[in-house]
């Protein structure tokens, strides 16, 4: 069994309630932190090597050290619980089953940053979770972990839960701040960064739910010890939400030292491909990261074992690699259609574009239409090049990274599966009744002979 730091107590019955959480070592990290100076807590976080779990993987300690501290101006901590990246459902698990772990993390983090108000911005569709969080907040407060003069330290903190209302873009930190201010979720131009000018123009740190929960084990075992988990610059553990055509979809905590092959095929995790099928492709970090075919997933282009770490997943860059992203691990079996899958993502990004930048607003719609044509057997060969051109024109030309996130899946699909797109164009009727299959992306595990196409 892999070592766990976040879900180690998830199996304990009723751990979501204060008394049970407390009786099992809960709030001991907070106790410890409140006896330290904020500077020392920050040192522990820096030593841990923790990287943001929301998708970008930016070092958390460094981010915290950027926060501006002008006299007399409040600072804010915002917990990003917008979780809308297709394939990602790990933060939901933490909030539903371990709400006090998050609250304890928010307390330590707010103390370190000198924030007296903290907002949890949660996607509106998770409509039942605010009740769970608010109950946990009330219990934490009753027991002296929130409110005024926490544990006699003189530190005050209030945590509020705010629901979004259905907009993926509000996961982007500046759009989230706009939304918290009661506006449309239009991303802001950076700089200024939120650490200087964030919520109501005050210094603000926005962190993902999992990042903030990870602060608790870091304080429990110490930053140095935390950094011994994982591999290289991928320290600690990561929650992976696994879905698609696998035997055991769900949320898994992995130590970042296992191989992709072990993650997919071992009984401890995904339990292999469903229905005895073979692996075709995988999108390992949520819809925004490049899709990779089976032969590049389990081994890198250099033939090395691909590991579940930030570095190994991105080994080879976009030519042959992908990204850890948010940990939304989407597996496609041999029966799945790459064109159709890409189309659903293009439609998603078109639907979610805030519309501020024309390359994103127009380009995402255009990509959706062209992909729809190809998928319906009404595409032309030139459409494939057209798609390539459109995504190139979006990438890097927009205010926020949603444009890139929309471009990359299309680029990767064409890069690795161009023959499948061509097959759709050349076989308009056949492509409506059957799928392309595995072709040359043969399962490198050779569980069975490649399908004849």
């Amino acid at each position, binding site marked *: 069994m892999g070592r766990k730091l976040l879900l180690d107590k998830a199996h304990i019955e009723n751990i979501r309630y204060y008394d049970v959480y407390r009786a099992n070592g809960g709030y001991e990290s907070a106790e410890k932190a409140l006896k330290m100076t904020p500077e020392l807590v920050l040192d522990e976080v820096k030593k841990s090597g923790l990287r943001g779990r929301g998708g970008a993987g930016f070092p958390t300690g460094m981010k915290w050290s950027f926060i501006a501290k002008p006299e007399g101006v*409040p600072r804010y901590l915002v917990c990003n619980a917008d*979780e*809308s*990246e*297709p*394939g*990602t*459902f790990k933060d*939901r698990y933490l909030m539903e089953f371990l709400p006090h772990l998050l609250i304890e993390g928010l307390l330590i983090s707010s103390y370190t940053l000198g924030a007296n108000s903290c*907002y949890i911005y949660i*996607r*509106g*569709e*998770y*409509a*039942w979770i605010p009740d769970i969080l608010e109950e946990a907040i009330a219990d934490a407060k009753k027991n002296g972990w929130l409110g005024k003069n926490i544990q006699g330290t003189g530190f005050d903190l*209030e945590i*509020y839960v*705010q*629901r*979004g*209302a*259905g*907009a*993926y873009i509000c996961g982007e930190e500046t759009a989230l701040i706009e*939304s*918290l*201010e*009661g*506006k*449309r*979720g239009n991303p802001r131009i950076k700089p200024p960064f939120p650490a200087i000018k964030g919520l*109501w123009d005050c210094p603000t740190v926005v962190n993902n739910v999992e990042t903030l929960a990870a602060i608790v084990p870091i304080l429990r075992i110490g930053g140095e010890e935390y950094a011994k988990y994982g591999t290289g610059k991928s320290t600690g553990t990561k929650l992976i*939400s*696994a*879905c*698609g*055509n696998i035997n055991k*979809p*769900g*949320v898994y905590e992995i130590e970042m030292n296992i191989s992709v092959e072990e993650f997919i095929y071992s009984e401890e995790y995904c339990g292999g491909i469903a229905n005895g099928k073979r692996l075709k492709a995988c*999108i390992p970090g949520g*819809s925004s990261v490049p899709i990779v075919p089976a032969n590049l997933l389990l081994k890198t282009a250099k033939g090395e074992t691909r590991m579940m770490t930030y570095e190994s997943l991105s080994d080879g860059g976009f030519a042959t690699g992908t990204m850890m992203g948010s940990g*939304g691990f*989407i597996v*496609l079996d041999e029966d*799945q259609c790459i064109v*159709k*899958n890409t189309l*659903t*993502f293009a*439609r*998603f990004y078109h*639907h*979610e574009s*805030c519309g501020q930048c024309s390359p994103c607003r127009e380009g995402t719609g255009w990509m959706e239409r062209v992909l729809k044509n190809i998928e319906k057997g009404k595409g032309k060969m030139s459409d494939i090049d057209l798609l390539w051109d459109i995504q190139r024109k979006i990438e890097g030309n927009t205010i926020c990274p949603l444009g890139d996130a929309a471009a990359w899946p299309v680029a990767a699909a064409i890069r690795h599966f161009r023959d499948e797109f061509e097959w759709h164009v050349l076989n308009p009727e056949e492509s409506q009744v059957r799928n392309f299959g595995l072709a040359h992306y043969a399962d490198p595990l050779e569980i069975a002979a490649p399908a004849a196409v």
Partner: protein
Amino acid sequence: MFSEAKLNKVKEIIARYPQGKQKSALLPVLHLAQEEFGGWLSAETMDYVASLLQITPIEVYEVATFYSMFNMKPVGKYVFEVCHTGPCMLRGSDNIVDYIKKKLDINVGETTKDGLFTLKTVECLGACGYAPMMQLGKHFREHLTPERVDEIINECRVNAN
């Protein structure tokens, strides 16, 4: 108009923000209003919300129309919001949508004649590992099959009576 209890809730929400930042309460108050006034936001409702938060009506309209959870026109009593993004598609969400269409004799975006059911397709709801799925009111219905859909429709019909 909100009840006394709802007005207190609005006050409580506004108190979460610093003085003068009551506009931040807009999304939570729109959620309350939609629940209270028939599952959608009429111009009247939005004007009322504007007056409660002392902001202009246009500030409410532009926000309400931006977010997909706010309904700008009336919907059925039960709204089936079926996810059809990649991970759900990989596990057969298209079949579920087709099944509901046939069963209720409506297309996506339509409401049954008795005003009971609306069918919508939505983008990823964060339940990809429990696909196919839909949102029904406050909760998710996961691991959908035609049989599960039948049960849910029956359950709604019973509750509606």
